């Protein structure tokens, strides 16, 4: 049936020529590059701003008179909050594709390894390390995930909040992946205690520095401080230190070929989230009006959280001497983390 309500019997592009019949791009925002990307088209300006198009201002307020989103939800300042675009260009489709691919990869690895009886061959000491320390670690990832979930409520633009939201989603996925991984290999290993991880997280002195840092990030009331502390400080100094320079590298040397692929997705997650974070903070430290104030603020955050990180890392040190085979020393691992951290903070001129 033709389109009865159309004067030209069709509803298709090109069926008639008239003013703007060829206006096929969103024309209310400036793309970052020459042409708007798909990510920009589905993201930019969905969260309105009284300074852009919201001519009636926010129409519901909190009891203190503030509207749904306010600039002072962070101490950082920007002359243009709308400039940020996430380098990972994530929107729903790419997010599900990536998350889903990781989930099926991990499940495949675990199922195959179990099929060939790999967990049963684990060195006993190593199995204990997995229960204890990887078991504790899952709570750190979860803490970051919930903290970022909180943070995605506050950002001044859709771009900032969606990047925070996907970061949260990645962290929560990882914490669940580790949880289920441990529970599943635990089915194959005699005497496995799946509760040991949480006990360790709560009580073992080794982990208290890390827990204190995670709780400090969760307890922050500044969403950008949470984002900064997570990706600029915690991840290079503790996250990569533990995941890469301990779990991934030491596992292989102790006959464990499963753990590395299970947690290595986290490193790729982090590369993306780090790129997003650096772009955002780079804009803020080079802001035409607020660069100096922002730098001072971020240096304060850096001091606060790197002190916590140092304490956390020192706490973790004994873990490196626990396995039978010790391919990496703690001091080498820490030196690598320090180098990485210096590179990241260097990019931001901090």
């Amino acid at each position: 049936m033709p389109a009865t309500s159309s004067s030209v019997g069709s509803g298709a592009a090109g069926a008639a020529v008239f003013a703007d019949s060829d206006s096929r791009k969103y024309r209310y925002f400036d793309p970052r590059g020459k042409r708007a990307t798909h990510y920009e088209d589905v993201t930019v300006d969905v969260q309105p701003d009284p300074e852009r198009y919201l001519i009636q201002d926010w129409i519901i307020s909190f009891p203190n008179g503030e509207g749904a989103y306010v600039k002072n939800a962070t101490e950082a300042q920007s002359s243009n909050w709308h400039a940020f675009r996430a380098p990972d260009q994530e929107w729903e489709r790419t997010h599900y594709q990536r998350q889903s691919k990781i989930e099926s990869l991990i499940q495949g690895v675990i199922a195959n390894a179990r099929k060939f009886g790999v967990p049963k061959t684990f060195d006993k000491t190593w199995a204990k390390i997995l229960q204890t320390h990887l078991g504790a670690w899952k709570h750190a990832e979860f803490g970051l995930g919930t903290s970022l979930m909180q943070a995605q409520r506050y950002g001044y633009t859709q771009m900032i909040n969606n990047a925070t939201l996907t970061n949260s989603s990645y962290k929560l996925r990882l914490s669940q992946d580790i949880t289920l991984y441990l529970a599943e290999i635990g089915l194959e290993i005699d005497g496995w205690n799946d509760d040991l991880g949480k006990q360790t997280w709560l009580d073992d002195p080794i982990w208290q520095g890390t827990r204190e840092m995670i709780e400090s990030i969760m307890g922050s009331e500044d969403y950008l401080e949470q984002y900064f502390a997570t990706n600029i400080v915690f991840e290079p100094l503790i996250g990569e230190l533990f995941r890469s320079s301990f779990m991934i590298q030491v596992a292989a040397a102790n006959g464990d070929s499963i753990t590395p692929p299970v947690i290595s997705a986290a490193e790729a997650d982090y590369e993306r989230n780090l790129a997003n974070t650096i772009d955002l903070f780079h804009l803020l430290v080079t802001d035409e009006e607020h660069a100096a104030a922002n730098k001072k603020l971020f240096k304060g955050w850096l001091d606060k959280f790197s002190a916590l990180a140092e304490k956390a890392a020192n706490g973790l040190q004994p873990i490196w001497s626990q396995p039978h085979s010790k391919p990496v020393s703690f001091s080498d691992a820490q030196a690598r983390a320090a180098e990485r951290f210096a590179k990241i903070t260097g990019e931001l001129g901090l």
Partner: protein
Amino acid sequence: MANTLTLNKITSQRGISVGEAAKKIADLGWNPSYVQEAMTYPTDYVIKKTPKDPMKQVLRSYFPMEEEKDNRVYGALDAALRGDMFRNVEPRWIEWMKLFLAIIPFPEISAARSMAMVARLTPGEELRTGFTMQMVDEFRHSTIQMNLKKWYMENYIDPAGFDITEEAFGKCYATTIGRQFGEGFLTGDAITAASIYLTIVAETAFTNTLFVAMPSEAARNGDYALPTVFLSVQSDESRHIGNGHSMLMSMLKEPENHQLLERDMKYAFWQNHAIVDAAIGTFIEYGTTNRDKEKESYAEMWHRWIFEDYYRTYMLPLEKYGVKIHHDDVHEAWKRITEKMYVHTVAQFFAVGWPVNFWRIEAQTDKDFEWFEHKYPGWYAKFGDFWKWYEKLSYPGQKVVTFNEEVGYVYPHRCWSCLVPCLIREDMVVDEIDGKLHTFAHENDRWTAVEAFADEYQGRPTPAMGRFSGKREWETLYHGVDLADAIVDLNFVRSDGKTLIPQPHLRFDDKDMWTLDDVRGHTLLSPLTILREMSDEDREAHLADYRAGFTINPCN
């Protein structure tokens, strides 16, 4: 032996059960002892009982499930293009999608944001997983809808209006109604907003009309894309409804919540009705070319979904927990939708204001009249002449309907609460807030703004409750401004600098299109500003007049 040995049995592994997996994941949380989480979005509710997670889903199965849903959606969009869907799609329908899809991605993403608010207020960790998935779902909904809109813009005959969509959302006199809806999800008392208004009422009661009724009507108008996207969106809702119900059960446990619950159920039900029925009712009844008398009208669907399913099976049982339910409001909403012709007065209002819209509205004609009269007896006497006038005045050179006194329409006051105008004239009420006069569409709207959104409720302090704020009456922004200048300021002009984006017809030809010159010379006025400036006596007379209604003059 050989008979029972299957490949599945050889390769299958003992796994952990779904319940066990959910339990382990809920155990990821702990009570912080070094630094406490800040309670940044306060509520006046007390929630002590840990809500249960009814869905028990984990991200490992969630992500692949959603990706598979996405694959079906994007596959169907590709297929629609290959099948030349747009050649047969009804512009009458797609034009309304310019309004609908300008609005809906914001409420969706607001729902994602609001998950942060409830997650922090909820004791225990069980439901945290549910909130997490809802957060990611709502991110899905917002961007998948933006994608659909972009796709319409790229493929539909008239992309104007789609191309300025998020700008238009912030400016238009109709989208303001949708902003009230979306801001309601994330501003004010966190539980009122994110649990009651969003989840327990909007999602549980009204998403069927949004995401199920709309797709059916879309399909009847040759649009197979919207059903694909929105049925997929709706398939996530059962999880959200589960989250809401679980929270509700926890709230009910504390008797001190009951008074607030009664307040919020009343507010949320009434305002969802006022907003969602105005918008979706109009899209479905006026955006269609299908006049099959066998199909259900919006009113009939409302009765089935809202009255029977929601009111009878969800709201009524709350009484056994001691929460007062406002039966009268449900009956009154039903009366507004049927006898008082609520949806029809909204469509009429949108049509009258066409020059400050950003989509096209074409006239309803004879073939539509019969269906309306059949489904809504008495419709023709009330609206027949109006739509004849509208058709007659749809040609450039005519005096624009908004200002044409020959028609007899009286531009309405705006409701300070739901932001839909006071269209059922006899129900309009006024009241003061902080010494300032406001207009309301109904006593329930007055109650919402004056009594519910306040710092105390029935003598009980409610320090977390939100306030209605901003320049809520859109008309005040352009009081005393020439219509043409207002349209330029709104940026609802095509890129030739003169042709209007909105048009009162579906004639796709420059010679039929209205330009700024065709609408110049009429001054927009704010009914509220004028009302406030009147003497008490004049105001009383004006209000009596307003409530008496108007008559559309015969159109020959």
